[in-house]
C-alpha cells in the first residue's frame, strides 16, 4: 500500500536528493546516533524513498555511519537527509560526546569505567 518506491530512484544522482545542499543544519557527525521520534508512526507519504529508508532504519537507534553504510549512501547525503527528517520532527538526534566541554568529564569517566568492565 505504501510501496511507492520508484524505479527511477537508481538513476538519480545522490545530491539530487538534497537539493544540492552538502551541509546539514544539525550537528551530525559520523558517530551521532539517530532514532525515530515516535517509533509507532508510519512514515509520511510524501517522503523521498531514500528518506523513507532512513526513517525505517531508525526504528532502532543507529549512527549516521551505520545508516550510510547500510543504505550505501554517501555520508554527506545521509547527513543532509537525516537533518531534514529532524527538522520535520520525525527523528531524534542523540547527544554526541566530544569531550570538549568540562561538563562531559563525567561521561568520559563512564566511558573509562565501561572499558574497564569489558576488558579486565
Amino acid at each position, binding site marked *: 500500500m505504501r510501496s511507492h518506491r520508484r524505479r527511477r530512484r537508481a538513476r538519480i544522482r*545522490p545530491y539530487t536528493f538534497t537539493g544540492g545542499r*552538502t551541509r546539514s543544519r*544539525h*550537528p551530525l*557527525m*559520523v*558517530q*551521532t*546516533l539517530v*532514532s525515530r*521520534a*515516535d517509533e509507532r508512526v508510519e512514515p509520511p507519504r510524501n517522503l523521498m524513498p531514500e528518506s523513507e529508508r532512513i526513517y525505517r532504519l531508525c526504528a532502532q*537507534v543507529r*549512527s549516521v*555511519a*551505520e545508516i*550510510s*553504510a547500510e543504505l*550505501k549512501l*554517501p*555520508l*554527506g*547525503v545521509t547527513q543532509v537527509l537525516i537533518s531534514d527528517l*529532524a*527538522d520535520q*520532527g520525525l*527523528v*531524534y*538526534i*542523540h*547527544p*554526541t*560526546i*566530544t*569531550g*570538549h566541554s*568540562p561538563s*562531559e*568529564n563525567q*561521561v*568520559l*569517566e*563512564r*566511558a*573509562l*569505567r*565501561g*572499558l*574497564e568492565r*569489558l*576488558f579486565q
Partner: protein
Amino acid sequence: MASNVSSNKRPSVASTKIVIAGGFGVGKTTLVGSVSEIPPVTTEAVMTEASVAHDDVSATPDKVTTTVAMDFGRLTLDDELIMYMFGTPGQARFWFMWDDLVRGAIGAVVVVDARRLADCFDAIDYFEKKQDIPYLIAVNKFDGKLDYTLEQIREAVEVGPEVPIVEFDARDRLESGNVLKTLLRYTLSRARERQREAD
C-alpha cells in the same frame, strides 16, 4: 542544538568516537575487529570536502568527491553510552578528508609497526597539528617481540614525553582493550587539566 523533539520515553543514549590511525597495513582494522562487539563494517564511504588544500583540481573549485574505505566498530559501554571506533584510510593522499572522520573524536590511537616507523609520520603530524584531540602511540608487535625499546621509538617518531606509548598485539582482545583504556585515561587527564586551567 539536537532536535525539536524531546521524548521522555526513550532513554537518552549518547555516542562518542575514537579514531584509529596509522599507515597502511599496520593493524588498524585488526585492532577494531579485536575489540568491536560487531564485525567491523568496511564501507566505501563517499566523502565530500571543500578542496581548499588541493590545487590540482582547479576545474572543480568547490568540492571533491572521493570514495574511501572506512572501517568502524562499536562498543556499548553502558546502557546510555556507545563508543564507535573509526579506522582512517591509510593512504596519505586521503589525509585532506580526515577532518570529517576525526571531528568530535575524544581521542585517537596511532598504530605503529616498529619495522616501518616512517609509515606513521603522516598520522602523527596530523594529530600534532590538531592539538585538540589527545592521541597515543600503540606499537603493534606483530611477531611477539620488539627490536626497539619504547623510549627508542619515542625518540624516532619525535613525540613529546606527555604522549603515551604502549605496545600491544592487535590480534589480542585484552591487549587491544588495554590500548583503549590507556587512551581514555589520557583523554580524561587532559580534560581535567583543561578544567583546572579554566578555574
